[in-house]
């Protein structure tokens, strides 16, 4: 080969190298974690090392079959105290998702949102707003929505300005062994079906556990939820939800509220010192909000409350009709409150059956009659309600 030809070849090579001379940018922890989440393959485990990791933008995962694993909910902390972008901390739209042993703190919006996913496990995860209950806290802590086969186990949710653990528009759900504290709603099951909520602690929330069904949503007809063996204690925190949100209507001091759901079994729970009422069963009409949805059933039905223990509570109701009742009777608001609304033609036991709740007392508020003639007799509700089957989910064979 001639010398000239060799030189000719060398020139373009040198030009190419020069073009590649710009060094590639270095990635921060945050960028490299987000890149791992984007480039993950099914079966991958993404590790969050111990330490407090500052993030400024939402993380997101769209790849199925991925596990995100920290070294403990008090060790591996994703802190969003300086968050600049994104309406949540971690946003997941991915089936077969497992997240465990880490914390998500101080997100500007929701902490962990899981949308449209099947087979979701959230285990030993803590979501927390560390400044206490503030209206400026994000709305939801652990937040699966339009999802199925959901297990939330051993988790902790603190300080959400809407709900700490919120499962919406979903089916096949287990929430267990978890603690919800200092949220507006501790645990909320909304527009969902087939949920078991058990062995949790709900304390110092505005409302401990809420089971709601709301109109004008693509998924409604909330039913078949069992709430059992929970401790629902001292849920007396003043309501700090922004106005306009449905939970902003929940009186402080609500232990358990069932709103417009059907087929609910409540048993083995310990209700203590929830100062509006330990338990309420109400229709959507109680919110005073308009209903413009012909497919929506605003009335609760087939609510079975048995073998619970009640102590204290009802002493300082944060609700006008309950406060008037307390004044009129000179007594604490009864443990179990029903607003008294029902579909014409139905009877009291169609709505609410109660047995074996110790010396729990009861009131039918007569909301349809303008709260004029409350009824305290529990007798009409002495019936054997249905026992619902255990919820099974695909990740817990």
């Amino acid at each position, binding site marked *: 080969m001639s010398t000239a*030809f060799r*030189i*000719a070849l060398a*020139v*373009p090579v040198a*030009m190419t190298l020069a073009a590649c001379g*710009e060094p*590639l*940018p270095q*990635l921060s922890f*945050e*960028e*490299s974690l*987000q*890149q791992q989440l*984007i480039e993950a393959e099914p079966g991958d485990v993404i590790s969050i090392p111990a330490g407090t990791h500052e993030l*400024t*933008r939402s993380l*997101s995962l*769209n790849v199925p079959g991925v596990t995100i694993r920290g070294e403990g909910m008090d060790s591996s902390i994703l802190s969003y105290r300086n*968050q*600049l*972008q994104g*309406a949540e901390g971690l946003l997941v*739209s*991915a089936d077969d998702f497992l997240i465990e042993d880490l914390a998500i703190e101080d*997100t*500007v*919006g929701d902490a962990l949102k899981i*949308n*449209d996913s099947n087979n979701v496990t959230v285990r030993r995860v803590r979501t927390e707003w560390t400044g206490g209950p503030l209206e400026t806290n*994000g*709305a939801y802590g652990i937040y699966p929505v*339009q999802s199925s086969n959901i297990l939330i186990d051993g988790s902790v949710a603190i300080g959400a300005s*809407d709900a700490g653990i919120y499962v919406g528009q979903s089916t096949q759900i287990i929430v267990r062994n978890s603690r919800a504290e200092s949220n507006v709603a501790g645990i909320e099951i909304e527009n969902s079906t087939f949920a078991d909520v058990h062995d949790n602690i709900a304390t110092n929330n505005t409302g401990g556990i809420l089971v709601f069904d*709301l109109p*004008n*949503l*693509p998924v409604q007809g909330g039913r078949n939820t069992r709430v059992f063996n929970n401790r629902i204690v001292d849920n007396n925190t003043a*309501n700090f939800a*922004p*106005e*306009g*949100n*449905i939970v902003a209507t*929940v*009186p402080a001091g609500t232990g358990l509220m069932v709103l417009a759901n059907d087929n609910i079994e409540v048993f083995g729970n310990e209700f203590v010192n929830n100062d509006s009422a330990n338990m309420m069963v109400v229709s959507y009409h109680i*919110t*005073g*909000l*308009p209903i*413009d*949805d012909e497919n929506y059933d605003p009335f609760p039905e087939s609510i079975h409350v048995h073998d619970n223990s009640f102590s204290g509570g009802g002493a300082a109701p*944060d*609700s*006008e009709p*309950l406060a008037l009742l307390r004044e009129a009777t000179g007594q604490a608001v009864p443990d179990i409150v029903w*607003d008294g609304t029902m579909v014409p033609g139905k009877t009291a036991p169609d709505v609410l059956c109660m047995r074996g709740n110790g010396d729990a007392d009861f009131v039918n508020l007569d*909301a349809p009659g303008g*709260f004029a003639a409350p009824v305290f007799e529990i007798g009409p509700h002495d019936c054997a309600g249905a026992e619902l089957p255990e919820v099974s989910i695909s990740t817990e064979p």
Partner: protein
Amino acid sequence: MIRHLLPVLLPALLLSACAEPRFFEQDNPQRLSDWNLFRDDGARLIPREQTLVFTPANPLFTDYAGKLRTMWLPAGEQARMQDGELEFPAGSILSKTFYYPTGADGVLLESANHENELDRQQHRMIETRLLVRREDGWHAMAYVWNGEQSEAFLRVAGASASVSLQRPSGIEDFVYFVPNENQCAGCHVTVHPDGPLHPLGAVPEQLAAAVLNQNENPDMGHPSQLRAMQERGWLEATSPQPAAASWEDTHAELDTRAQAYLNIHCGHCHNPDGAADTSALVLDGNHRNPVEFGVCKTPVAAGGGAGDLLYNIYPGAPERSILLYRMESSEPDEMMPELGRSLVHEDGVALLREWISAMDGDCPEPVRAFGNR
């Protein structure tokens, strides 16, 4: 003699061989220049003549940035019109370069013109996003320009840039966000979560608008950009397509403009199959009644985004409407759209305010029997 010419000729030959865009079927190159979409003479970034510069009829707001968009189809390939959709062949590349005109002292200016090339003396380029049509569908990625403006690098996880922008009200300092690849899908996947990624600007109703690029054949008058594609042999002749209504079209009806604004800024998530269907708010024009686009509709999971207001749209009362509250917010947990902007879009807010103000009717006042406050 020939020997002596070779060192001169060979690089020239290589350069001309490189003079058209290059498609990568598998891995995304780290550098934007590898795609060869632009002729870069150091002073200016100029789209290669094989590309078509285009502008959608109903554009999206991105923090007052200018956008230079190009389209390229591989030689001999054609797009097809199928069921009202434009199907691009594998190998097609769409690009969008976000830039600001530069002012004094590093302050950037709102973009007023549609530039066909970017003079580095007068513009700062922030990012170039690509949509690449491969055999398995569209792929989205963003390249971020370095400080020297000499190269843009692939940033899978997105990036941010500090910007000082001259606004009529004064200088606004903000952080401009380049989306990560999941965030690209957040808008370009309209059927959540498993639908395909697809273009939002290079669609028939957006391209049916007139060509704005003066470099395109001036003898053509102002034909639609679909015609421009046909002229290049990229598209079979088709029957004329109706152009999308534009929120910018001040001759159009107020309702048409407002719905066009909501469609392009919100409809990719707020549609019956979109990521925001959890809220039951439908803003892509497919609503069945006014409640679905927010009239007297209560929020579902808006949190602080509800702004202490009860209804999404309160007719005649923009100040009581959550929709306007969220458009006027730039807090990440409150603002809408959630992505794609850091600043409030004043013109958009003004349009929607006028639209809501012109609505008749009232929403019921809730009588809160149980209310805690």
